[in-house]
């Protein structure tokens, strides 16, 4: 009989443990990527769009230097984090055999879908970040199996505790009488 309070404490402890929601990956940090092969075209600001396939976001910039002029990208991928510190983006590209660069920023902590003004540019072109070429994928999220069972464990514990408490109560009442 003396073990019952300890048992109850154990049940309470287990119930509390199973009620705690497990910590998952921090959703506030994503990687922003400019991929080779991306394009830049006329605009006066830039926006970050998302690529549904990947866990993070990516830039898809385009360059348009006017009719008949095309630029090929040479810039390696650029990564930063949404919600991070202000960031400069510089992209290099080849125009008429000459390597040029264009920069965006510094921009404030990046937010999805917000338009940002352009920073300095070494060539007469503007930059925008347009919608990414979107994949038809996604991500698989691991299922929290303890979370699935927690309500049932809690219910079971509650019923057991209630049953034991009732039994003890009835027994004591009878003894009193």
């Amino acid at each position, binding site marked *: 009989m003396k073990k019952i309070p300890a048992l109850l404490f154990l049940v*309470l402890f287990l119930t509390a443990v199973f009620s705690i929601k497990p910590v998952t990956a921090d959703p506030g940090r994503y990687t922003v990527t400019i991929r080779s092969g991306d394009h830049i075209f006329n605009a006066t600001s830039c926006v970050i769009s998302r690529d549904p396939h990947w866990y993070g976001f990516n830039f898809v910039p385009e360059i348009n230097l006017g009719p008949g002029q095309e630029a090929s990208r040479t810039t390696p991928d650029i990564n930063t984090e949404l919600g991070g510190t202000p960031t400069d983006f510089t992209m290099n590209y080849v125009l008429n055999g000459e390597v040029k660069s264009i920069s965006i920023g510094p921009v404030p902590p990046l937010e999805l879908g917000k338009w940002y003004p352009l920073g300095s540019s070494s060539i007469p072109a503007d930059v925008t970040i347009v919608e990414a070429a979107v994949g038809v994928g996604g991500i698989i999220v691991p299922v929290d199996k303890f979370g699935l069972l927690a309500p049932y464990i809690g219910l079971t*514990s509650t019923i057991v505790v209630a049953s034991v408490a009732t039994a003890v109560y009835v027994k004591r009442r009878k003894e009193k009488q």
Partner: protein
Amino acid sequence: MSLVDLCTFFFLLFCLVRQKPEDTRMKTGKSRIGTKAHVQAVRERERRMVATIFVAIVLVIILISAYFAYSFMNQQPSQHINLEDQETNSGNSFKAAIVDHLSLTFPNQTFIQTATNILKQTGYTVDYYSGEKVTVDLYRNLAKQGYKLIILRVHSTATSGSDYSQTQVSLFTSERYDKTKYVTDQLADRLTMVAFSGYELSKGNTYFGIPPSFILKSVGGKFQDTVVIMMGCEGLSNTIRAKAFEYKGARAYIGWNGPVTASHTDQVTTYLLHKLIDENQTIGQSLQNALNDLGPDPTYKSQMICYPYEAGEETINKP
């Protein structure tokens, strides 16, 4: 009231009612009973206690069993696929299904119309399932419908959101993830949770996903020499899903070996249907021609391939 609160309540209740019998006797002025009688009383008390606990445990087991039995029965194929928007198909006709989960995110009526026309002109009857009808039960009943061709225009992924690692391919449903639904399937890894992106995950927009084990163990019936065209990402980045369809009776499984963009998968699938059905080319020829004429996906460089590889020599069944 949370579970912890409830348990605390019962614990306090227990503490309140708990009193030492000796103290009670002293207070009530009763004389001490004999040793033998006392031992008997203790034994009797213990016997009753054990009996009470036993009954309580049995009750708990009954309750839990009843719940799981209810859950299990509830998730059986209880609902027939709603065909109210579709044509009524005769039993022996060649049937094709277009499962258009992408209609929710990347609607393309031109693709649907073109694919439907190609199939109908050959004599197929076509069942079209729009995005909101793409539920767990739709997949559960898919093999029973007798389709010869199934076009899965659905989001799919083999990318694990926790570490970007590659795993088994899961098809998306439009059914919101709910941890109280299909519990036994979830516990047995026959259903997964999927999201379009990490951003969508952070907003809590998650859905039930269909892994290969669901096709193997939870799909009722058998496919009838069905050709499955899987238009989503990474459908054939590994062969586990393809093998699951093959095990359930599919003749060939066509899919992408990596991520793919919506526009490219629509374009290539339309081309493929044209080659397979209008020109009666083999699956292998059609895939090779699609690659030659349209190239790999411009963004992800993935290609459409088929499984098993011998199926490349086969053609599509036609009425």
